[in-house]
């Protein structure tokens, strides 16, 4: 049981960490391109900003799904249930 708990902790940390890594890099590239684009054509800045937020919501998606799964494993670990039953 300790082995399951320990490995669950490591698994959750990997999910959260790699999600954060990917999201950070994605947002960085996205923001950089937005700044570049709005510097080239300042009159397009509001439209670009709206599209930027849309894509930001999409980039967040799988990371958040990973967080949800990580929290599920932390507080209601299904593998422990299999051990007991």
């Amino acid at each position: 049981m300790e082995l399951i708990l320990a490995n669950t902790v490591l698994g959750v940390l990997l999910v959260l960490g790699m999600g954060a890594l990917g999201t950070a890099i994605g947002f960085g590239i996205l923001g950089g391109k937005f700044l570049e684009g709005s510097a080239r054509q300042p009159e397009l800045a509001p439209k670009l900003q709206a599209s930027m937020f849309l894509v930001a919501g999409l980039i967040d998606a799988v990371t958040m799904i990973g967080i949800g799964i990580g929290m599920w494993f932390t507080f209601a670990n299904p593998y422990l249930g299999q051990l007991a039953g």
Partner: protein
Amino acid sequence: MAELADAAHAAAEHGAEGQTVQEYITHHLSYLTYGKFPDGQWGLAHTPEEAVSMGFMSIHVDTMGWSVFIGAAFLLFFRYVGLRATSDVPSGIQNFVESIFEFVESQVNSGFNYKNPHVGPLCLTVFVWIILMNMMDLVPVDWLPEIAMAVGGLWGLEHMSFKVVPTTDPNITMGMSISVFFLILYYSVKNKGLGGFLSELAFHPFGKWMLPFNLIIEIPTLFAKPVSLGLRLFGNMYAGELLFLLISGLLGAYQLPAHFVWAVFHLLVVPLQAFVFMMLTIVYLNAAHEPAHGDH
């Protein structure tokens, strides 16, 4: 305030503190479930373990209640303002409702290029309903459940869990996204014909001799749409609520500034997720209305 009382309680029981925090979090993460117990009786679950044992034959009463209440409040309020709308100088409330309406209208007009009278109201409903449900997350974590426990105490239900943010329940978010998915399928078949829709799955992006590869690519793409649409909203809101719970459970008296900081961050996520859901609904329905290509 309730959180300070809880924090003081948790700090006082330093010996069993981990257990208390764990119980606190688990209590706040479980739903008020009405369902069928394993022995066949129907009733409200008294502990999270009982709620899990009910399995499929159960309903989250708190989530359903809050989502229906919020939806009804939104519809009644907008209808009230709409019936009293004047083309004269608008009042403040009418201005507010009109600005929301015009925002959604501009997004739908720019993203949806076909004629369908249902898309506009659908997107308005999706946007405002999700924003209102998400905003329940900004009410401090303990307030509404404590009121519910006090009210439930009249019936002997003091320890019932009570979750007030419907969008942290995957049932609600997946329900909305599966409804949108059915609309996608319905309008795809209606505009392209059943044969056209299936041939688009089978013959895009490669030609007909690569049928298995096309199907392997297209079918997961098709099913990824509702799954990602629903889980994106759920994951964002669940993570936000969980962070509020962790702050109030673990930080003792320093939780108030931390709550404030996280609430300010969360204020961005709340309308952003509603906006993303609405935009994706528009984009998917637009793609569903595209007539089939003739050259495949």
